[in-house]
């Protein structure tokens, strides 16, 4: 998504002189197209994420739309209080771009695994939180949100090729996207792990189990109406995210089920404990935490088994 983000931002910068790009020393081989076209609107501020957020707050107060960029952990957690006391408290249009959510930085280790960025961002009032599932949706999401009046957090993938079947680049703020229809189980996914959910749904289909798969990219504002409508039609829903099960889409769905008194059981698939000392590829780490297609199929079968047994 990084290349698409860069090209999209460069197009926006062509149209609007307010668009700026700041990075805390990351983006090698990513930002060159933007820098070549808009050298005076690009700032590598050095390894100083707190300062980057403070600068962006001042620039936004002056009328600019600054996009600030780093690895998701460094973009969200290190300057978190600067985000809260800056663009949040001042209602300013700072865009925080965190790249490599979940385990995408695999072997880089736990300092680079972003497992709580959505949760901490979703806590704050007035911030739009966007987690696209694939490359075309990332472009649509940026185009739909870049000039919102308040702050935005984007959780972007490093993967420049990821495509989620059935999504077709759709994105609407405050809505979810249904990418597969089925009657037996509802699966709600956030981010690129949606592709693994589709793969799991395909395996379940081969076993005669039809799933509805929905993608939540507009985490805040949440797709409340869509979720209420969907959840009301299923006895059980799986939420899937490369994130701790607390704070992300699993929490969001559980809150909506509870607040609306829905009779849907929620099974949250995600990270439940800190992966101390364990490293490896993103695929390995996702499998370790039950997020591979195979693991998701097993969880889905366990989730629907009581109902299937009682119906028998």
């Amino acid at each position, binding site marked *: 998504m990084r290349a698409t983000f860069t090209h999209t931002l460069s197009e926006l910068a062509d149209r609007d002189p307010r668009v700026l790009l700041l990075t805390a020393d990351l983006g090698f081989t990513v930002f060159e197209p933007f820098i070549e076209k808009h050298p*005076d609107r690009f700032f590598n*501020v*050095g390894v*100083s994420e*707190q*300062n980057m*957020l*403070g*600068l*962006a*707050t*001042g*620039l*936004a*107060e*002056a*009328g*600019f739309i*600054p996009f600030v960029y780093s690895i998701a952990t460094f973009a969200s957690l290190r300057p978190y*209080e*600067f985000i809260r*006391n*800056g663009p949040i*408290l*001042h209602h300013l249009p700072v865009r925080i771009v965190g790249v490599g959510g979940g385990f995408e930085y695999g072997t880089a280790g736990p300092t680079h695994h972003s497992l709580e960025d959505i949760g901490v961002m979703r806590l704050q009032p007035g911030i739009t939180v966007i987690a696209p599932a694939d490359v075309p949706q990332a472009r649509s999401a940026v185009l739909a949100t870049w000039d919102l009046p308040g702050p935005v957090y984007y959780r972007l993938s490093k993967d420049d090729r990821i495509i989620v079947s059935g999504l077709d680049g759709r994105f609407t703020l405050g809505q979810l996207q249904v990418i597969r229809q089925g009657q037996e189980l509802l699966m709600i996914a956030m981010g690129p792990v949606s592709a693994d959910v589709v793969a799991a749904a395909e395996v379940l289909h081969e076993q005669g189990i039809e799933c509805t798969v929905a993608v939540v990219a507009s985490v805040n504002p949440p797709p409340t109406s869509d979720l209420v409508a969907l959840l009301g039609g299923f006895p059980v829903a799986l939420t899937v995210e490369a994130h701790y099960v607390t704070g992300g889409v699993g929490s969001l769905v559980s809150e909506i089920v509870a607040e609306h008194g829905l009779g849907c059981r929620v099974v949250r698939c995600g990270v439940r404990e800190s992966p101390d000392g364990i490293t490896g590829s993103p695929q390995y780490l996702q499998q370790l935490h039950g997020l591979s297609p195979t693991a998701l199929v097993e969880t889905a079968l366990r989730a629907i088994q009581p109902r299937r047994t009682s119906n028998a």
Partner: protein
Amino acid sequence: MESLSSRRIRQIILDQSKRAHVGHIGCSLAIADIIAALYGEILNIPSPDDPNRDRLVLSKGHAALALYAALFLKGWISEADLNSYCGDASLFGVHPDHSVNGIDFTTGSLGHGLSMAAGTALGARMQRSGRRVFVVVSDGECNEGSLWEAVMFAAHHRLANLIAIVDLDGQQAFGYTSEVLSLTPMAERWRAFGWDTHEVDGHDQKAISAAVASLDISDGPPHVLIAHTIFGKGVSFMESKIRWHYMPMSEEEYRQAVREVTA
């Protein structure tokens, strides 16, 4: 409109602190002369919503009462506003909020203001505006690493329209800076980071104004005034005493303090 003097600012600080029965008196008194110089002579603010007005970030937000006093004396907030200080449903808390007419940035967490000020200064330069950005930081605040991130950025980008004023009173919340975390030599530290550094008496308004007037704000490095101040300045029993970072005044302490600042 009343005349804007450090004497009136000090009296308002004492009156409001006594009425609200709150502390943070000494740190507000320490910058009364700096605030008087800024709002009396230095800042170019035709109106608080003029987009090309000079900006002020009170990064040491815990001294907001001195700022409220100046805004009142400028006629930008009312006496009722002032009298709501630390009351329920008031916009006027211990730390300043940007919702208040005349306050550009919400502060209160130390180490944040200079980076916002640097962004504002960079924005002004990109817009080819002549507005200047002032930021008042405390010496204890210089413990914060984030402040030095902004110091480096401003120097690297030669933000000549950025003017920091360090309130060097030698105190922080829980002790003297020399005992908690030494900041000596303050001026040499800023100079080493590439700032145009000046030392002034932080209680001499004329010297502060003259120092600012001498700065080249169109080109060159950012500027810092190391303002030597006395914590609690003007009230003998508060001067350089840690407890007056926290304590409210008794009736007798209030009467004596007012006698001294109005003498």
